[in-house]
């Protein structure tokens, strides 16, 4: 006498063993180790095994068998449903569609953080312009590095046109700027997941700093020079910072006002939706770091500096208006 479940197992066993072999190889060497035929075979075997599992649950009381099928299906599920895209197409898809698309989706928080930053700049500027001594309230001494109301106009001017041509030092400086800024930006994004309020604070205090410095330099008739020093990289860097802040706010919004979904589900949804912004912002920070670390330290002509600033602003404006429209 042969049990029905035993006959069932005999009939299907070969499929499971074949799937187990494929899955084991994928787990050790990745999907790349499968050839074309095996790659098309994997989902077929996976679905066959899933159906075996359903049948076994219904008819078989062999606990070891059901457990085996369950574990095998779970392993195959992970292997089948994991990201497996070629790097090149994924990259172009990212920059042509997903990154600008995600930024467009987050336009409302982006406007909001921009307003907060602008408010910070205006406040810092107004306060310091009215009373230069208040500069010290906003700027730490070690951050100012001698650029404060006590320093002479000459030394202030020198700080804007200070150049340094040694390659290694420039590289180190760029790389420092990039890593430092990108960390702050990503931190801003992550802070969003804890309700978003710190994002406003970070944006506002950054604005205060910028406003205080601009008031200081403008007070000595160096306003144009100061912005010419900040904006070539600042356009890109501030944009990246704003994007991170907007992404953080979108996360915070999901926690505070989850809408129709549960809070957890909404947070998970928003988290995935803003992920491309974070990745893209790292790219922007990298570019800003290069401009700041190399270009600003070598080019001192005010006209060229302003041209670069305007050019980057135009470029980013065009990029985000032109691409990503079709994204959902």
């Amino acid at each position: 006498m042969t049990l029905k479940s035993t006959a069932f197992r005999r009939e299907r066993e070969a499929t499971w063993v074949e799937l187990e072999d494929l899955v084991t190889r994928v787990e050790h060497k990745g999907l790349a180790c499968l050839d074309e035929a095996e790659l098309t075979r994997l989902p077929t075997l996976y679905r066959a095994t899933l159906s075996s599992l359903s049948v076994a649950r219904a008819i078989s009381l062999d606990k070891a068998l059901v457990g085996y099928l369950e574990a095998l299906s779970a392993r195959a599920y992970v292997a089948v449903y994991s990201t497996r895209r070629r790097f090149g197409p994924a990259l172009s898809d990212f920059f042509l569609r997903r990154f600008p698309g995600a930024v467009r989706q987050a336009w409302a928080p982006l406007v909001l953080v921009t307003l907060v930053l602008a408010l910070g700049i205006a406040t810092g500027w107004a306060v310091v312009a009215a009373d230069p001594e208040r500069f010290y309230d906003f700027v730490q001494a070690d951050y100012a590095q001698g650029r404060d109301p006590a320093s002479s106009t000459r030394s202030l001017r020198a700080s804007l046109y200070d150049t340094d041509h040694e390659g290694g030092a420039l590289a180190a400086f760029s790389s420092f700027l990039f890593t430092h800024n990108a960390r702050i930006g990503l931190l801003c994004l992550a802070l969003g997941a804890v309700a978003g309020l710190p994002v406003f604070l970070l944006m506002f205090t950054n604005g205060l700093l910028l406003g205080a410095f601009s008031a200081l330099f403008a007070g000595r008739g160096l306003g144009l020079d100061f912005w010419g020093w900040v904006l070539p990289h600042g356009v890109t860097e501030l944009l990246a910072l704003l994007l991170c802040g907007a992404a953080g706010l979108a996360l915070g919004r999901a926690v505070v006002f989850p809408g129709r979904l549960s809070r957890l589900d909404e947070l998970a949804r928003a988290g995935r939706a803003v992920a491309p912004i974070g990745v893209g912002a790292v790219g922007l920070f990298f570019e800003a770091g290069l401009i700041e670390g190399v270009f600003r330290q070598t080019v001192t002509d005010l006209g060229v500096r302003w041209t670069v600033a305007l050019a980057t602003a135009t470029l980013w404006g065009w990029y985000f208006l032109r691409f990503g429209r079709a994204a959902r």
Partner: protein
Amino acid sequence: MSRKSPASAPATTGADPRRARVLLTPEGVPLTFTLAARGDRLVALGLDLLIVVGAPILLFVLIYFGLAALYGGGLEWSLALVLLVVFLFRTFYFTLFELRWQGQTPGKRKVGLRVVDRRGGPLTGDAIFVRNVTRELELFVPLAALTQPEALYPGSAGLGALFAILWLLVLACLPLWNRDSLRLGDLAAGTMVVETPKAVLLDDLASAPEAPARPFALRPAEAPEVTFTSEQLDHYGIYELQVLEDLLRRDDPDPEALAVVAGKVQRKIGWDPAAAIPPEPFLRAFYKAQRARLEHKLLLGQRQERKRA
């Protein structure tokens, strides 16, 4: 053998029912995963951190001495490279590995863990990025806050620093306080960490005609034909059947335990003690007959979970 059998339909084989989590695959089949233990995750994280911290140091030493040997200098270039590599490594180490290794990092692979989507969908690159970008906030900043609160909150030591540290510790301890031991990153990405499922295909007890390895056991050919009446097979349910399966599947069943169990079963079903059969062949025959009976009932829509009182 005091393990409770789960009452719900997909019978799980996982060790701890409290850690069993059911995911619905896109095909609509529920799969059971075992949630990773917090200690295991900590070990995996420790291993990964060793790599994250150790590799850039190694690289710095290599580059520094390499450049010094080539050009007699180059501290600045190596510094630039190391800053970049440390940052990229710290930020993207977890992301890149989880992307390439289907939700595993070297540490997770060593310990046997992996990341899966909490709702059963595919694990996307976006989810992986988000679950790892928050590590900065959960891990590196709290560490910095603990060692040097001044750096986090310049100028306002004391109360401000204390508040910051508390706040960040709350984040770092988040996994201790929820049922699925989710980090902030898991919350934001909709993922969870489970144990990598492992199982081997064992022989079917009901069809194993090969002779057992033990020398004094009866060979199948010599085994007496044991038959049971349907009344005798009506006493036990699925749970008892599977406990018996566990007993028979042990590598080296204790003869005394087998004898005790066989005695109990024989008394329960009213077996004629005159037909003296050694415990193991008896239990194997009983297992097969009992399973056939219960599976037959199952096909007719009667699922008998437990023995009759």
